[in-house]
């Protein structure tokens, strides 16, 4: 590509740069960079409220736990389309893969802030393998899955760059990559929950269960499906002009199908959650303050949106589906924060409890903003919501 071609490709003449949205984004970026400098010059204590009782804070609870769960749309969508033969979801695969890829990439970036010596992050894979740790399993799978997502996403980027040969080679791997992606997702989504199985004395009995791994895996499915619906409704609003007829034509079907699937999976999730309570005989905790909070999560953020999905699917009410998707997404964030922070160390007196530092909140917002900006950069340039005319017949 010539320099001019590069310029128009990466920086197409857009609207004015100084829009209100861009100003806000700019501010967030500036604050994020400031906190980044503080983190890597002053240490963790400079920008976090982490202490010896709370070694994991917002960055693990939200950026890692919730981030990975919400990026589950990648494996659920591609599995539905390529493995279970639901070809009518094909146009939803690319946006879902892109969301997942950006999500996982930011999880890994965020981890570089959280761990004490980020340059050693490859150690567990290449230097000293602590295979008895569930975190080893998580690390291995996230590293591999990020690679898989990169390859799956790269097809889009290669079409955009016009590198046909390489694109065809990778495209032929679609099936293997999809299967591999589902295996890796099953493993690390569940292992994120299993991380806490080693600490029964610290996590509140209503959240602790021998089934934690299963709960995390099953909830990641409806989290992913809801995120695809949620992301789709936002994209519809802002990137409508980028969408081709196939995408627009299939979109309603995707939303209905995913809402139906999410609703049924949420029903199953509730069933196994109740079974978990029975298995550990923790019924009596339901009457306590933590029990109320548990019921808020279960009824308000799982049962309610699950039911709303069902009603909305029956009535073909797309507005209600969008609302249910938003509640589900918030519910997943709540669940991960509960397990990681709120119901963790539940016996400690209030003054010893953790509340995130402004630096932790700032850097979390920074990460989410980078994700949104990257998403916008890519969908306004690359064939995400439309098919590249040169490759129409190739799937």
């Amino acid at each position, binding site marked *: 590509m010539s320099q001019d071609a590069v310029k128009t490709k990466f920086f197409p003449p857009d609207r004015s740069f100084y829009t209100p949205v861009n100003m806000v984004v700019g501010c967030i970026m500036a604050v994020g960079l400031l906190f980044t400098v503080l983190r890597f010059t002053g240490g*963790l204590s400079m920008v976090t409220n982490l202490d010896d009782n709370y070694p994991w804070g917002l960055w693990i609870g939200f950026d890692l736990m919730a981030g990975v769960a919400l990026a589950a749309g990648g494996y659920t969508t591609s599995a539905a389309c390529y493995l279970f033969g639901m070809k009518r979801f094909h146009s939803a695969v690319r946006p879902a893969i892109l969301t997942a890829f950006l999500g996982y990439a930011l999880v890994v970036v965020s981890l570089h802030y959280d761990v004490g010596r980020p340059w050693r992050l490859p150690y567990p894979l290449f230097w000293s393998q602590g295979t008895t740790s569930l975190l080893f399993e998580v690390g291995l799978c996230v590293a591999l899955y990020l690679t898989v997502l990169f390859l799956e996403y790269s097809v889009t980027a290669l079409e955009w760059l016009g590198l046909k040969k390489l694109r065809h080679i990778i495209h032929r791997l679609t099936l293997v990559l999809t299967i591999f992606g589902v295996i890796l997702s099953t493993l690390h989504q569940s292992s994120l929950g299993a991380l806490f199985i*080693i600490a029964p004395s610290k996590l509140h009995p209503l959240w602790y269960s021998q089934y*934690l791994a299963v709960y995390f895996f099953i909830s990641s499915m409806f989290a992913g499906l809801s995120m695809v619906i949620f992301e789709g409704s936002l994209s519809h609003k802002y990137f409508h002009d980028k969408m081709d007829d196939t995408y627009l034509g299939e979109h309603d079907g995707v939303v209905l199908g995913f809402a139906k699937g999410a609703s049924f999976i949420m029903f199953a999730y509730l069933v196994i959650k109740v079974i978990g309570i029975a298995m550990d005989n923790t019924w009596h905790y339901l009457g306590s303050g933590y029990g109320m909070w548990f019921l808020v999560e279960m009824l308000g953020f799982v049962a309610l949106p699950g039911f709303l999905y069902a009603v909305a699917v029956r009535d073909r009410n797309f507005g209600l589906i969008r609302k249910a998707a938003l509640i589900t997404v918030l519910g997943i964030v709540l669940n991960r924060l509960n397990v990681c922070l709120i119901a963790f160390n539940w016996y400690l007196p209030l003054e010893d409890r953790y509340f995130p530092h402004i630096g932790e909140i700032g850097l979390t917002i920074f990460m989410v903003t980078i994700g949104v900006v990257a998403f916008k950069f890519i969908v306004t340039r690359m064939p995400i919501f439309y098919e590249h005319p040169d490759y129409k017949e190739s799937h």
Partner: protein
Amino acid sequence: MSVSRRKFLAWMGGAGLSTAVGRKAFAASNKHFEGYPDSFGVLHDTTLCVGCRSCEAACNKVNDLPQPEKSFTDLKVLDEKRRTDAAAYTVVNKYESVKKPGLPLFRKIQCNHCLEPACASACFVKAFTKTKEGAVVYDASVCVGCRYCMVACPFNIPAYEYDKVLDPRVVKCTLCHPRLLEGKLPGCVEVCPAEALTFGKREDLLALARERIRKHPDRYVHHIYGEKEMGGTSWLYITGESFEQVGMREDLGITPAPNLTAGALAVVPMVAGLWPLFLTGAYAMSRRKEKIAAEEQAGAVANAIAETNDAAEKKLAQALEKAKKEKEAAIQKEVKKALEEAVKAQEADKEEDA
């Protein structure tokens, strides 16, 4: 990287040669592990502790830890509940007695050196090792700083150097492992003026603790904390009042940490081993369905074409038939005409002849 013996053995095991190589622990899944024989430990008799903080001072000294703000002789520090942190491997806390109101109880806190350490089980770079001497030691040279060990520890012992930028470490009591190797006592045990701490082989300490409880049944609670808690610890405790009373959790259970995660870890290879089967199966079935659907569609199209062809052929045949008939009729007509003409001509000839 050289191949360590363990790794080599791992490969041999993977190749199915394990029986030939033979490590004693290659037994079936009900194999029970007792821990290192003759490993050391410390018995903390809290009834003897006077809360002088000498152990804290000694620990600080032998481990070259930073000097605290308040000196170790300042006993007002005991009024607040403290825990181990980056600058203190051990702390002594004061508790209220229930049996004799007004009298204080003291308990020393430090790493309990589990027989099956949760920190070691949780560490994804093998930074923690249970040594044969009994100490659980930490290797900062591989530590990434994920702090999962701190999440995993049921006793809330490991602390972290949150204010260090380049080389933050996890910090915890080492049972003075370097001193043990030199034949010395742990710093805290050596200095204790009240004999509240006894160092020895764990087996002997258990016997000693049982003996004290047997001799003074009204002085001690009939339980040795650490004998079974979390699968057993190298530090053992006996108290005069409930362990809850001196800030020790009685609800930890006796399951060793590696056992807690064993189930979840065992599922991992089954998912990796069977998901390809199920997923490829689902793919193959959906492909088959598509193929059958495609074949049926193709068949339907072929039928339709065939039917159309048949109809066309029939029509053609009919048209041909018709044409044939018409032709025949025309020929017959011509023949008839010709015959008639011939007859006429004959008659005309006859007339001429006549």
